[in-house]
């Protein structure tokens, strides 16, 4: 379980995160939601150790993350940020093979190859394994990167807006894959996501942030309420809930926008 | 701040007139004795005019280039302009050795303009214009042009004297040998008239076109103005790096990027910086001079470092 205590982040006089206290439940999918500038990505980057907090601490299964050496941390936490413009001549398989770096440092064993095959199969990418990355569509590329983090075989997976620039089919595929990672493999997934509907339908736990602080957090049923979301986003929400899932309608709010 | 700048400029002008190898007391200045008058008109005044105009011209060049390329770190020294001018002078010297300064300037102008056009064409194909990559590429581009010049100079054995052109030095400025610098005046006037359009240029081609501006014509005009200024200054004075880089950035920090408002500040600051460097250069090893290229390199370099470090703090 990842716990965050009294986390702060300031840049000079600008406070980006203040007094964040959270416990991310294990083997569950947690979404970080909220308007722009809420501090969601900053929080995620600090969990990934890509940013240093100004104050406060982060604990992984009880021990402080600052004490864990880099290569050990890589075996427990994998991070996926926005896919950069990619112009490396890498095949999908070669990319996924990078995920084994923390374990084999470049020399792939038979076990590594098996893990790579499993990761590719998990996302149904086996047919594309020999294709070059820059020949794939954005959605397929994102899946390939996800396969790499899967091959890293970590307990925790951190993703920063994985659905950006994806068409709906690939977005659904990614979310379904993440859901399966939690259910079938017991991994903990934490992701920053903009689309509140995806968050509502696939998460177990939601952390809503606003203006650098936690607005509210809890089980999906507690957070996805019209009152809470209106407070968070400043929009009127119409939430429909049936056995298929949630539908948050904020597209044509009645009345005036504040 | 708006009042502060012109006052500073006037003060620096005054100091510049008084400083020099030949001692001139305030008394002599006011009574305008023959000696003082000669020094004043033959050397001090031309020098003052040249320094100011060069400062104004170079900072304006910097600002125009930065708006066309949309990158904060571009100026003639980091876009190959200076090296192209050097190549132009070299070619004209070897092909037409008897031609005067006028035709040399023309050659420098043509080469500088062509090099700028090539640079802009290349840069436009680059996707992320807002990075440090552009000036780095510009520097390497300039290095390549320099290599070309070296190749040429080596064959004609003028390699060492060629280095001399490239170092800015105001000590050569004497009445009768500097008038070419007045060509910067029309450049300043035109820039002021077109200031609004250059600002729009800085927003990118798409926005400029959607606002009804002919992007190609305006940017070509801008490049031509830059080429004229650079060739004139290289012929008259030599190359002076950093002014076009530092001044627009400093001014933009305080006044923003709207050229119609900030152009006077840019011009005055450029002139003031160069005057200050020139005065320092004349006083440091009195009565000998440190070439202006050196002082601006030091001062400009430090200022630029401060700028970068400050910028990346955020």
């Amino acid at each position, binding site marked *: 379980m990842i716990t965050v205590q009294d986390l702060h982040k300031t840049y000079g006089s600008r406070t980006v995160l203040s007094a964040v206290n959270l416990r991310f439940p294990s083997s569950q999918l947690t979404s970080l939601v909220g308007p722009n500038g809420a501090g969601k990505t900053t929080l995620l980057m600090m969990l990934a150790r890509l940013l240093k907090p100004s104050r406060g601490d982060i604990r992984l299964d009880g021990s402080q993350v600052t004490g864990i050496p880099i290569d050990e941390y890589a075996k427990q936490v994998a991070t996926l940020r926005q896919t950069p413009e990619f112009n490396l001549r890498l095949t999908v398989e070669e990319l996924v093979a990078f995920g084994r770096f923390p374990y084999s440092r*470049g020399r792939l064993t038979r076990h590594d190859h098996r893990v790579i095959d499993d990761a590719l199969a998990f996302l149904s990418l086996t047919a594309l394994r020999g294709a070059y990355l820059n020949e794939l569509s954005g959605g397929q590329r994102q899946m390939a990167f996800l396969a790499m983090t899967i091959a890293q075989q970590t307990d925790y997976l951190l993703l920063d807006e994985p659905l950006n620039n994806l068409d709906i089919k690939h977005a659904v595929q990614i979310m379904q894959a993440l859901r399966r990672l939690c259910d079938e493999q017991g991994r903990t997934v934490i992701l920053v996501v903009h689309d509140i509907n995806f968050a509502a339908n696939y998460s177990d736990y939601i952390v809503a942030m606003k203006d650098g602080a936690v607005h509210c957090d809890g089980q999906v049923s507690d957070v996805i309420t019209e009152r809470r979301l209106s407070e968070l986003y400043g929009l009127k929400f119409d939430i429909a809930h049936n056995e298929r899932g949630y539908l948050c309608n904020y597209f044509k709010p009645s009345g005036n926008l504040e | 701040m708006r009042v502060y700048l012109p006052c500073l400029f006037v003060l620096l002008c005054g100091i510049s007139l008084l400083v020099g190898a030949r001692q001139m007391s305030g008394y002599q200045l006011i009574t305008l004795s023959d000696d003082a008058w000669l020094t004043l008109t033959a050397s001090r005044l031309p020098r003052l005019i040249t320094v100011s105009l060069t400062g104004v011209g170079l900072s304006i060049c910097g600002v125009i280039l930065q708006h066309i390329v949309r990158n904060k770190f571009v100026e003639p020294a980091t876009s190959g302009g200076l090296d192209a001018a050097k190549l132009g002078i070299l070619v004209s010297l070897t092909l037409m050795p008897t031609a005067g300064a006028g035709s040399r300037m023309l050659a420098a102008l043509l080469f500088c303009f062509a090099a700028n056009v090539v640079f802009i064409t290349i840069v436009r194909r680059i996707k992320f214009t807002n990075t440090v990559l552009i000036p780095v590429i510009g520097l390497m581009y300039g290095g390549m042009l320099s290599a070309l010049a070296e190749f040429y100079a080596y064959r004609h054995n003028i390699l060492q004297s060629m280095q001399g052109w490239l170092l800015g030095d105001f000590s050569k400025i004497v009445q009768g040998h500097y008038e070419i610098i007045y060509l910067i005046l029309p450049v300043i006037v035109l820039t002021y008239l077109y200031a609004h359009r250059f600002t729009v240029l800085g927003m990118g081609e798409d926005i400029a076109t959607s606002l009804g501006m002919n992007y190609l014509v305006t940017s070509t005009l801008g490049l031509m103005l830059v080429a004229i200024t650079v060739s004139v200054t290289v012929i008259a004075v030599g190359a002076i790096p950093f002014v076009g880089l530092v001044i627009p950035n400093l001014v933009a920090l305080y006044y923003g990027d709207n050229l119609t408002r900030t152009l006077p500040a840019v011009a005055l600051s450029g002139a003031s910086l160069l005057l200050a460097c020139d005065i320092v250069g004349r006083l440091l090893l009195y009565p000998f001079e440190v070439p202006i290229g050196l002082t601006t390199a030091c001062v400009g370099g430090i200022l630029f470092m401060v700028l970068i470090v400050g910028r990346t703090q955020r």
Partner: protein
Amino acid sequence: MTVKTRHTVWVAVVALALAFVFVRSGFDFEYVIPKRLERLATMVIGGICVAWSAITFQSLTGNRILTPAIMGYEAVYLLFQALLMLMLGTRSLMLLGEHGNAALSILLMLGYSWTLHRWLFRDDRDNVYFLLLVGLVLTMVITTFTQFVQLKMNPGEFSILMGYSQATFGNASATQLLYATLIVATICLAGLKSLPMLDVLLLGREQAISLGVDYRRCVQRQLLLIAALVAVSTSLLGPTAFMGIFVANTAYALAGTYRHQVTLPVGCAIAIALFILAQLLVEHLFNYKTTVGILVNLVCGAYFLSLMVRTRGTA
């Protein structure tokens, strides 16, 4: 591309080497051949330095248009040589001897890079682009100083200085070569272990950290290695600014894979071949009307321009 093409490259190198050593030599094993062998050795070591430093630097910065020279190493070397010539005149040659000069130059360049890194890497800052910007400014400032110094010396000193500022192969003695070989061999062996890490660096800073690479320390160490390689090649040959770009990009194209295990050796082969070719051209085609340094810079500079146009600057 495959093992076959890689072998072809090495075959070409060997062929060129043989041509260089033996063509028009009259098989004079007393003087001509040993001299040429010395020069060949210089080319080999220089080629390895240039290729290794350029490819590694490009992997660190994530961009294929850059070269270590923009960090200012070569500018520092040129300034040092100019100052030496100005202050001591031609006596400097006798005073320091070639060993002293080379040793001092190397130490100076290493010192410069160490100070740069110390200053730039504090406060959690490991943005390579910031490093580039500072390198840019420093190169400009140092070059201005060098121009000033060059003006002050007399033409005789200037032409000797030019000997140091242009890449040539005739300067190094056998002992120098020996030292250089030892240094380069140590660096390359030390670097071999971190080749997989270099591969990961290609994915970018954040991905590398996520995969467990100590990014900051890795970059620092690689930059030091690069500085050492550049120092050795500059003091042995002179500045070779653009050559790294040409060599690196051709290596990527020929190697067909991203793996440093393959691109580094191919790059070395290309660099060596380029040097030999340039020297052959200077000797037989241009009749010494130009130097290897100028020729290489010219060709590679033109290549650099075309590369920028073709790849849109993000290669």
